[in-house]
């Protein structure tokens, strides 16, 4: 974990409203795991004040230059323009100075493989699944990725996932790409076919709630990556907590999303509380 004062290698729109930014970060990949995140700061400007959390899409390195310098290591994030900070980010160019804190948090727990692995990503929730897919494939797992979005614009990096050896299934709410409907419908079908599968999911809370319900009904192990508002990203401010399973007024259990998470095993979370604080109805 380190604070990189560094610069942008490239910043490109990859789908309407979605950008991929490649940032120079020597040494970053050595410690980064799938599911971890970074806190990103637009160095030039004060507003927005706080850093913004972004999942790690992937790490890598550019081949050594002919000038004999060592290969340049980088980290890539993929972000959706939703507000002030991401609007500024979309206007950044190669060479612009930025600050990056990471890798942070606890990522996916992906031990050895003995069954199907089903990854469920909704919109920007696809981001942390790319590294995970790579790791799982390397371990010899069968990886199926269910990609969901509102429209075709929310689906990105399909060929990249496929190049890893992942089998992809696309669904959109409006049917503009892939199957029409919600991604959880596809999940239900897949779990009938592969009852021994393990599921890994990231996306908007209503989607996660539905995924969780399906996994509970099927007794399927589930890991989810959560998004909470963050200030510090390192466990100092206690602003990002979620309630743990079994939380009560008398015996409270608050878990830092930035430190214990952002990836949690679903059974350790209080899903009713999660659904409530994200305004999407009960989870039962």
């Amino acid at each position, binding site marked *: 974990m380190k*604070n990189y004062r560094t610069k942008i290698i490239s910043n490109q729109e990859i789908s309407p409203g979605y950008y991929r930014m490649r940032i120079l970060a020597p040494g970053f990949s050595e410690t980064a795991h799938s599911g971890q995140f970074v806190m990103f700061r637009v160095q030039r400007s004060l507003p*927005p*004040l706080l850093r913004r959390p972004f999942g790690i899409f992937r790490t890598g390195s550019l081949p050594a230059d002919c000038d004999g310098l060592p290969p340049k290591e980088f980290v890539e994030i993929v972000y959706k323009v939703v507000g002030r900070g991401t609007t500024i980010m979309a206007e950044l160019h190669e060479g612009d100075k930025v600050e990056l*804190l990471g890798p942070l948090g606890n990522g996916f727990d992906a031990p050895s493989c003995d069954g199907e692995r089903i990854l469920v990503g909704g919109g920007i929730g696809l981001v942390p699944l790319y590294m995970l897919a790579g790791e799982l494939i390397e371990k010899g797992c069968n990886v199926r990725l269910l990609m969901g979005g509102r429209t075709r614009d929310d689906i990105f990096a399909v060929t990249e996932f496929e190049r890893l050896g992942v089998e992809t299934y696309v669904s959109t709410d409006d049917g503009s790409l892939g199957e029409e409907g919600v991604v959880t419908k596809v999940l239900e079908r897949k779990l009938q076919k592969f009852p021994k599968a393990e599921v890994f999911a990231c996306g908007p809370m209503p989607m996660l709630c539905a995924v969780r319900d399906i996994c509970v009904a099927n007794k399927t192990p589930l890991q989810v990556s959560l998004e909470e508002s963050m200030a510090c990203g390192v*466990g*100092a401010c206690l602003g990002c907590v979620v309630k743990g399973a079994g939380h009560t007024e008398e015996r409270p259990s608050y878990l830092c999303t930035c430190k214990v998470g952002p990836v949690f095993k679903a059974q350790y979370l209080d899903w009713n509380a999660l659904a409530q604080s994200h305004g999407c109805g009960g989870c039962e």
Partner: protein
Amino acid sequence: MSETTRTTVKKPSMAVEIAGIKLRNPVMPASGTFGYGEEYAPFLDLEKIGAIVTKGLSLKPKAGNPTPRIAETISGMLNAIGLQNVGIEAFIQHKMPFLRTLNTPVIANFFGNSLEEYGEVAKRLNDIPEIAAGELNISCPNVKQGGIVFGTDPKAASEVVALVRKHLQKPLIVKLTPNVTDITVVARAVEEAGADAISCINTITGMSVDIHTRKPRIANRTGGLSGPAIRPIAVRMVHQVVQTVSVPVIGIGGISRPMDALEFLIVGAKAVQVGTANFVDPSVIQTIIDGIEEFCIDEGIKDIHELIGSLRL
């Protein structure tokens, strides 16, 4: 050439003393924004900062408020953490072993839910020799039953400070809330009740609404505003308090650059605390220390005390 200039430019003396605690320089983190110190060890040398100030400690572990707890505002943030903390026993067991190894004074920020509890925590602090001082939080605006009662009423403030003073065998810093009509009244009251130093300000109560959902942006409805947005208010209040009391004052509020810290020192703060800025840049305290030092060199200041309280009116 650089060799000679380097030897002729002497580093200024940055050391200050607050209520008998010797600080190598006047810059330290603000409570609740630096965890228990260890969280920031990867980003700066904890033995180069003035002191470490812990998250607010209470007798029993405290769960804190429902979420969402934080929201960004223009040049600031609202928080209603609700003083979540591990409690004094877990602090001693799990956090002190690390802090003990450091050659830097540790200041324990603490609070209670009742007068008695304030007293109990103070007593427990006496059992930790490595704690250099206690910083009494009578100002947290977040907890319904908590600090607000004490910090906004001069009589209640005086009562709790007197009680803690009686029990605590260490220097006592009292941290004031800005959520009062006249901060000098409370400042005077806590000085008379036995405070060895005063720190101010805590966060300013604020509110923010999501116009689409029409809900408050934090679950607690209101929260404490911190960050650059509050700095001019904080500078004004520190100025007023310095004019009122004779104990040393620690300035807090919106400091994120060396020049911000200098403002507080010039109005008379003997030291400063840096809060929200740690979230923006985890090594900002070191940057501020270096910047103050550089400023002193540029201005021909040999001792930081030449700067403290040098406001020209």
